[in-house]
């Protein structure tokens, strides 16, 4: 039983169902792992007592009909959790305890899971390395000097280090897929509107989407099934019938057309990434898929477009953190304006401030047309590129990131090089499409690398199926040494 925590979610579920292990034993095993992994700094808050209580409750009256029966889960600290502190990685929410539960986490609990703790993340999900968190940076279990990716870096680190059987993150420009890629795990950003945004601390409303982070594609389909669904409390939620992704998971991808976009071969891309991509193509081809060269001509504008749209929305979304009603309030200042200034100066970190400034600037009178409006137009073109391609192909294969995990501190003084790490993930958010990052290999240093499968809107099942077939034939094995315990 000691090895239960390095199994996949579906294996764990099977063990619980067959009573090979109790929910309490499972929970205790994770608690032990978490306590031994403080060095990784993956958790902001742990809810052990509550988790043990829930585990006992489950064991007393097991209900194995649910998707996530008796499983403890840690979640990104961007999801509001009832009566459990929710910080979004920020000082400004350092003392914030919501009285409500986000729809996505509530869906998980309604499917039999319970909360194990809250995972560190970049402040307000703004970052690609989990170095902007007020609670300190998170370490990648792959190596003690490596970032776990971001913004869902606590999630990727905890998952790869066996601190949670699966987890959820949010992805605004790659915040699930890039950390998944850096830690050799599976990450899915669903179609915009598939998972409710209600109760998730907002970064950029038109881009934010919650999604699963798991060890296997099958786990990913289970988690997606549990967390997704229409929510009338989110006006951008898609009203459609719920799908049973795990039951419908198939590994036959014969005859599927896979698009290979030429624009994703960028300058100075490491040779290893190119080789990884070639390897991916070969695996899919060998499985009977047909490779088709496609063009997504506006790809090069995606990153600048993203860095206008996302900060614009963020500058407005973060206006509510003013110290008036909840959260951190500075004690300094002689009037309302000074209270605002001090609260926000002390409450927000540098990266958040940088983006609020950019966002405020691009929405300002005289600049709106040149930046925000133009970015919205380009966004439509990027979306159209994908729409056009999907008349010819079933899915698109690209690398997830232009590099493997970089060193802690390597890019903190160069925001643009940090932003460039999202170059392959950002277009998907702008187009609102689903995309799956799969562990596909290691670079010469032995660090994980990921490949990304992009699907049509609401075509999650198809990319999960392709990923499932790929996973079986890729031979990727996560061999993380537990150096921290």
């Amino acid at each position: 039983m000691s090895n239960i925590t390095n199994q996949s979610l579906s294996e764990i579920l099977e063990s619980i169902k067959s009573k090979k292990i109790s929910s309490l034993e499972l929970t205790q095993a994770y608690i032990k792992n978490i306590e031994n992994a403080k060095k990784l700094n993956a958790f902001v808050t742990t809810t052990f007592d509550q988790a043990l209580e829930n585990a006992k409750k489950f064991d007393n009256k097991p209900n194995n009909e649910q998707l996530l029966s008796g499983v403890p889960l840690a979640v990104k600290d961007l999801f509001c959790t009832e009566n459990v502190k929710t910080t979004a990685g920020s000082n400004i929410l350092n003392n914030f305890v919501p009285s409500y539960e986000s729809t996505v986490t509530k869906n998980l609990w309604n499917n039999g899971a319970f909360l194990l703790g809250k995972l560190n993340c970049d402040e307000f999900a703004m970052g690609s390395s989990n170095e902007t968190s007020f609670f300190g940076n998170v370490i990648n279990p792959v190596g003690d000097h490596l970032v776990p990716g971001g913004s869902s870096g606590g999630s990727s680190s905890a998952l790869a280090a066996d601190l949670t059987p699966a987890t959820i993150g949010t992805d605004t420009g790659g915040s699930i897929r890039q950390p998944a890629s850096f830690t050799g795990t599976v990450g899915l950003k669903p179609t915009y509107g598939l998972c409710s945004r209600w109760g998730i601390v907002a970064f950029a409303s038109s881009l934010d989407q919650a999604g699963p982070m798991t060890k296997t594609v099958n786990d990913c389909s289970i988690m997606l099934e549990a967390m997704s669904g229409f929510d009338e409390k989110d006006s951008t939620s898609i009203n459609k019938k719920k799908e049973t992704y795990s039951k419908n998971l198939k590994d036959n991808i014969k005859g599927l057309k896979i698009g290979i976009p030429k624009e994703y071969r960028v300058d100075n891309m490491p040779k290893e990434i190119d080789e990884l991509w070639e390897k991916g193509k070969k695996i899919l081809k060998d499985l009977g898929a047909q490779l088709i060269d496609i063009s997504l001509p506006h790809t090069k504008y995606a990153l600048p477009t993203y860095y206008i749209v996302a900060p614009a929305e963020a500058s407005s979304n973060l206006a509510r953190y003013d110290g008036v009603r909840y959260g951190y309030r500075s004690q300094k200042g002689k009037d309302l304006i000074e209270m605002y200034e001090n609260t926000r100066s002390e409450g927000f970190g540098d990266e958040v401030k940088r983006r609020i400034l950019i966002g405020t600037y691009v929405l300002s009178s005289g600049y709106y047309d040149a930046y925000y409006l133009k970015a919205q137009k380009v966004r439509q073109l990027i979306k159209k590129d994908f729409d056009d391609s999907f008349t010819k192909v079933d899915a698109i294969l690209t690398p997830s990131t232009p590099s493997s995990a970089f060193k802690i501190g390597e890019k903190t003084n160069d925001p643009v090089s940090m932003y460039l790490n999202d170059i392959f993930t950002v277009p998907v958010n702008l187009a609102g499409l689903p995309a799956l990052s799969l562990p596909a290999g290691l670079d010469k240093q032995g660090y994980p690398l990921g490949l990304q499968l992009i699907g049509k809107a609401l075509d999650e099942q198809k990319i999960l199926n392709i990923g499932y077939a790929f996973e079986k034939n890729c031979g990727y094995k996560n061999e993380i040494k537990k150096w921290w315990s």
Partner: protein
Amino acid sequence: MSKEKFDYFINGEKGKYEVVIGLEVHAQVLSSSKLFSGSSTKFGADPNKQVSLIDSAFPGMLPVINEECVKQAVRTGLGLNAKINNYSVFDRKNYFYADLPQGYQISQYKNPIVGEGKVLLDMPYGSKEIGIERLHLEQDAGKSIHDMDPSSTYVDLNRSGIALMEIVSKPHLRSPDEVNAYIKKLRTIMRYLGTCDGNMQEGSLRADVNVSVRKVGDKNFGTRCEIKNVNSIKFMQMAIEYEANRQVELLEDGKEIDQETRLFDTKKNETRSMRSKEDAHDYRYFPDPDLLPLKLEQKLIDDLKKSLPELPDNKKERFIQEYGLNSYEANVLVSEKEISDYYEEVAKLSDKKLAATWMMGDLFAMLNDKGLNISNSPISAKNFAELVQSIKSGEISGRIAKEVFEIMVESGDNPKKIIESKGMKQQSDPKELEKIINEILSKNKDKVDQYKAGKEKLFGFFVGQVMKLSGGKANPQLTNEILKKLLKG
């Protein structure tokens, strides 16, 4: 109805100025819950008792449009003869204030739900059309209370998120009187529609007033000032009066008018500068990504149109045609839906013209006196109609009717009952009247002789005596006839 001439001008040394006014009216939508949350909108609750997590902008909270508010805006648009836009967009208007929890107000900027329309005003100098530029939906802010504590400001968010309709007029108004008529007309239309209660004391109707002046005959508008958030018609009129004169004085002195936002100080009766154009907020409007564009099916608009009640302009025409009222009477009787309903009930059961006269006279005077409105009138429409019919049929005289009316107000009783029990019925039996008249004539033989000798003024004396003797119940017309006959004889 004398046709007066429009005469609101300001005379300066250098010329005669006209005042150009445009209004941005903020009308609170009549709906049980707020624009984007389920919180109650009831007035007068304890502070912060009607506030949801959405209204107070907690992390992760999302707005969901309240359909009823959308329908109310469409109804109002239809009532203003306006174009309803099938596609409209909610935008964020960004600014910081303690009583604005989100740090932005959700409003409609480039694509409002209602486009151009018009409102007809009845002015003494004829009817005047005021153009409506647009109507859009937006959230109200909360309330900052600065005088409860010397060092702190308190915030009440009950109002935060309540739906407002901002109705923007074209700069077509030219005097405080027209502003008065315009606000009242808007209020009447919205009350007919049931889309806004128009209660200015409770802040359901407020306005930003844009004022500029120009020399009579000038084609171009002068520089305008906006007077923010005025909450009574009287204050609007005072503010306009002050502001227009201030601007004329500046121009007369050869100075320029700064485009600025001003506040009306109700205590000092003056406007004062709040912020100049340079300090104007940059609201950084952009489409709210939490809300999809609002797309209205034509069928919804058509259905709402079909279900609209008869509106004041149409009702007025009908009252003139159907009840033979003049324009003035019709105007007064359609000014409130409840009044028009009352009138129609009375008119169905009694003489239409007489009913109008008595309603606008004694009934309104009494209601006004008692501070009541028609819906809580102590006299029911049915009883009032009976009273009118009693007058019309000659059962009681107008003078007696006033007495009956007083008793009706006190007791709420049916007029027939009052007339019978108090024996107030008019004496219309010629024989009885002859008896009374003969008695008076025989008692006043000297006066009869004087009358016959040509002192015809004495006729009034005889009438008075008849009334006195009959306790005021003698039918005046019959009395006249019989008196004349007997005096001749």
